[in-house]
């Protein structure tokens, strides 16, 4: 179709300075070899050494507010299905969604409420704590009493931080969750997560390596050009440049900057007059957990928890991404948007602008990943050429490389 192509001059502000607010690891400055996104063997190592050994975010506590509430999640990286449940004791636990008798799934709904997990196949029944409680015709299992401890539901490590539910493939992880989340969580603590309501949910499956998909969202260099349609005016003068960067072991955080002469669209302008918060609106209220490096003209923080969980915070809104690798070149992307409660109808309309504008902006990000993957898989390019403001991209490949070097 024909539409006027915006090719206005792309001005990258020469005065811009990117602050390093923490130590920066020695990561080298050469191009990134293609193997980390094209090699099946490399991905197998990532599955074993990273995804099997690291805390992974799967949901939020608001999804399971009462005892007995549960949700299931597919873990495509392992071809496994898990159930996350709030027990009678209010504790959140995670189990493999598998009956220990002969493997039937214990629950087949994606979310519901229950008093026990009772298998459809033979009626075996487990408590919300995973303990095997009832076996019909138990006398037909002469060794049942002896074998019972081994027949409880298989558990995963499970813990929460600020309402985010994380699981771990090791039921007894070496490193506690809060310690793993480290300095990045320190910066974010205090953000009013519990005052935000869920307003949107999107998924997409992309034929590209999970790290390449992540790259699309952790550098702001592309924003002025790729998003010149979604955010009119972005192409004029260094929109959304990174202003400060922080590294915390495997995690990283990039603050981005909103140019102060960015005009909301005509419809947004009318709506924004009625709300303190909005996507391209500098927040009028102060809150904790944001802008840790105190940047001027701050817009939002891109917070990336290793390996695959983003929790980006704005003034009065936040959104999350998860990237689940299915194979070396196949990834499931998941996005959720949250915003402070709307007290009026016009605040709800501003929420609508937030989700639609943000949704269509990230939609533009979808448009590059598969082209890039193809360029490397086909052998046309053998490496990625990385600029200084794309340092988060470099950090990701470096962290993964360092882990894979070890046993």
């Amino acid at each position, binding site marked *: *179709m024909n*539409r*006027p192509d915006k090719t206005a001059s792309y001005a990258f502000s020469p005065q811009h300075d990117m602050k390093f607010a923490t130590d920066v690891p020695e990561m080298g400055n050469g191009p990134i070899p293609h193997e980390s996104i094209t090699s099946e063997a490399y991905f197998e190592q990532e599955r074993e050494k990273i995804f099997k050994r690291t805390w992974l975010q*799967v*949901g*939020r506590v*608001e*999804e399971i507010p009462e005892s007995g509430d549960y*949700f*299931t*999640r*597919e873990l495509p990286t392992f071809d496994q299905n898990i159930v996350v449940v709030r027990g009678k004791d209010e504790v959140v636990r995670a189990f493999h969604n598998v009956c220990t008798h002969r493997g039937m799934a214990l629950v087949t709904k*994606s*979310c519901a409420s229950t008093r026990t997990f009772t298998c459809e196949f033979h009626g075996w029944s487990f408590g919300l704590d995973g303990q095997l409680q009832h076996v019909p015709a138990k006398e037909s299992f002469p060794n049942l009493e002896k074998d019972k401890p081994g027949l409880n539901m298989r558990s995963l490590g499970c813990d929460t931080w600020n309402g985010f539910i994380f699981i771990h493939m090791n039921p007894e992880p070496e490193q506690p969750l809060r310690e793993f989340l480290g300095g990045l969580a320190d910066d974010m603590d205090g953000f009013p997560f519990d005052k935000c309501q*869920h*307003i*949107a*949910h*999107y*998924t*997409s*499956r992309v034929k590209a390596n999970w790290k390449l998909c992540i790259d699309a969202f952790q550098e702001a260099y592309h924003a002025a050009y790729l998003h010149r*349609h*979604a*955010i*009119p005016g972005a192409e004029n003068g260094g929109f959304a440049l990174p202003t400060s960067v922080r590294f915390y072991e495997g995690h990283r955080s990039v603050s981005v900057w909103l140019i102060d002469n960015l005009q909301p*669209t*005509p*419809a947004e302008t*009318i*709506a924004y007059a*009625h709300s303190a918060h909005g996507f391209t609106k500098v927040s009028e209220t102060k809150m904790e957990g944001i802008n840790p490096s105190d940047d001027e003209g701050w817009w939002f923080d891109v917070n990336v928890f290793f390996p695959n969980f983003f929790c980006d915070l704005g003034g009065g809104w936040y959104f999350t991404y*998860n990237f*689940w690798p299915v194979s070396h070149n196949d990834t*499931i*992307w*998941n996005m*959720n948007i949250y915003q402070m409660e*709307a*007290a*009026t*109808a*016009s*605040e*709800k*309309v501003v929420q*609508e*602008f937030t*989700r*639609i*504008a943000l*949704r*269509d902006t990230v*939609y*533009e990000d*979808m*448009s590059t990943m598969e*082209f890039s993957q193809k360029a490397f898989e086909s052998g046309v390019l053998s490496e990625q050429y990385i600029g200084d403001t794309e340092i988060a991209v470099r950090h990701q490949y470096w962290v993964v490389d360092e882990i894979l070097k070890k046993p």
Partner: protein
Amino acid sequence: MSNLLPQAFSALEPYCDKWLAETEKARNQIRTSSTLEENVEFYDAVMPRFEEMLKHLDEFPVSDLPTEEDNLLKLIYGFVEASCPAERFHSPVVTDTFPPERFTIHEDSPASGW
């Protein structure tokens, strides 16, 4: 035919048949399957009344809107969709390189996985 919208906005009743829908998924589908001209026509019809609509709705408790006001709010959500072609992309879709069928919009409900 009974009015879907508050009396003050009855001039916009003809747009309800197409643009009034219950979910984000449905509204997005209407936008992407309409022409640019249809999106812009609806946008142009609402814009001059938009401020007035917000002021009207704010007179009611947001968690307990009467039916006509609730319909007006949903029609506004349809307007937000139509504003994207009109103000941003100049096309019903975001980009030609990734079709809408591949970008899944879930129902307006708490996160339900991927």
